[in-house]
């Protein structure tokens, strides 16, 4: 009897603890969003989004950071999506499932996915800037500094490397949802493998490729470490081109909170910037989730 009560109590206690942990997660999300929105909502004006910082970044807007972030993720996608898609096509369509080369590629993709992002930053600095950039300068510009320094292009390519695993895995998943029977039907009609991929497999996985792109963009938009050494700038009075340094939302938050002459004065702008970045990644992730859900539904039908 007493034993039973004790058992029941113990069971209830364990359930309570696990439930509490789970609820804590919800609470963290709610608190985070509430604090950031309350702090930032007064900042979310067209003026804030469309103007340059002024008064030593204690006033004005964040337009260059939004512009820089947009360019960064666009160039990054242009590099990462085709490359990632082609790799995924090799893995699902050409490589034999258990061949050494396929296993090695998959191992490399998994490894890329877990490398800390700061190491990507260092790699970008060493490889793109010091190696590629310097060689370009030496051979095309007679050694004057053009590409051998941090800029938008190198930062975007570094970011592309970071997001590559996301693209590869998403596209692979999408390609696998195209039924084998359709490949067989196409081949039986005398289509070559490439015709089958181009006309049957890829059209059937467009939404997956888009999911991969969106996830990559949302990851890239929020990362700061890879661009610290490769192109992010503290403040710029003009909008950047490919060969220039650039401002970016994530780094802008860091700059405002740690590098500003008057941190308290920048507080509303910090909140506003955080709000914009959070909204951006949230919206991107939600659209990826919705797309992915649709793909799964299609697969189950």
């Amino acid at each position, binding site marked *: 009897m007493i034993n039973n009560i004790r058992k029941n109590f113990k069971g209830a206690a364990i359930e309570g603890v696990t439930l509490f942990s789970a609820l804590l997660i919800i609470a963290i999300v709610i608190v985070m969003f509430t604090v950031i929105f309350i702090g930032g909502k007064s900042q979310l004006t067209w003026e804030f989004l469309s103007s340059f910082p002024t008064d030593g970044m204690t006033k004005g807007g964040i337009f260059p950071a939004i512009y820089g972030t947009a360019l960064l993720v666009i160039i990054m996608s242009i590099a990462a999506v085709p490359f990632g898609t082609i790799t995924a096509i090799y893995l699902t369509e050409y490589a034999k499932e258990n061949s050494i080369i396929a296993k090695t590629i998959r191992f490399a993709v998994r490894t890329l996915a877990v490398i800390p992002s700061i190491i990507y930053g260092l790699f970008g600095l060493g490889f793109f800037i010091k190696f590629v950039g310097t060689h370009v300068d030496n051979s095309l510009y007679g050694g004057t500094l053009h590409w051998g320094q941090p800029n938008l292009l190198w930062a975007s390519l570094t970011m592309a490397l970071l997001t590559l695993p996301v693209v590869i895995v998403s596209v692979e998943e999408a390609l696998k949802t195209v039924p084998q029977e359709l490949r067989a039907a196409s*081949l039986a009609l005398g289509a*070559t493998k490439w015709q089958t991929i181009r006309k049957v497999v890829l059209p059937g996985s467009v939404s997956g490729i888009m999911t991969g792109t969106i996830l990559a963009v949302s990851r890239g938009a929020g990362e700061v470490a890879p661009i610290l050494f490769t192109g992010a700038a503290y403040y710029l009075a003009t909008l950047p081109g490919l060969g220039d340094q650039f401002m970016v939302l994530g780094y802008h938050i860091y700059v405002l909170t740690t590098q500003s002459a008057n941190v308290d004065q920048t507080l509303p702008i910090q909140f506003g910037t955080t709000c914009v970045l959070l909204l951006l990644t949230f919206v991107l992730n939600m659209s990826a989730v919705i797309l992915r859900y649709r793909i799964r539904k299609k697969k189950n039908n």
Partner: protein
Amino acid sequence: MSENKIHTENMFLYYSEKMALNNISITIPEKKVTAFIGPSGCGKSTFLRSLNRMNDLIDGVKIEGKVMIDGVNIYDKNIDVVNLRKKVGMVFQKSNPFAKSIYENIAYGPKINGVNDKSHLDEIVETALKNAAIWEEVKDRLGDSALGLSGGQQQRLCIARTLAVNPEIVLMDEPASALDPLSTAKIEELIVQLKEKYTIVIVTHNMQQAARISDNTAFFYLGELIEHDKTKKIFTNPDKKQTEDYITGRFG
């Protein structure tokens, strides 16, 4: 038997080390319906798929012996598999239309073969759909998705898609096994019509079906070709006891 279209000699097929087809020698005549019957796993589908080299897609498949079509060994090194499959079309057990319109499904084959002229394509699509006895049902909605058709219509669409490439041989792997009796009857009727122009090889689990539509029947068992003869002979007076046991339903 009339002119030989397909001819195999001492053909063996292995999945990795396991033998799936054991010494198959058979001659399949032109413009007739030849049915392959036998219990599940007897190798009849495997044999069918080796006639247009669809088994190439499976890892570890090895084939020995001769597989001749029109006197040419289709496993010779200089054979272009893509061309072979244009000549030897295939209809699968599960209807597998592309997620495209009815029109685009049929036009797919001709397009990859370089037919781009719209009026020519229209003509091919219409002829193929008519030959597959589905034109009347779909002529007013060629632009609709093929996935909206019923199972039986989808299968006839797949047959039309195969015919649009203008093959000489059509391989059918249990094309009616997933269909209701009415759709099955339509497919059977269609197969009988098709033999005027095409050599048909059909795998079926349904012995009545084989008896109804085929001119010749081959009985496979455990990877071996037990008996191959006129359908009438196989079903009324087979030479081998195994064949008789299977036909009369004593096993399988």
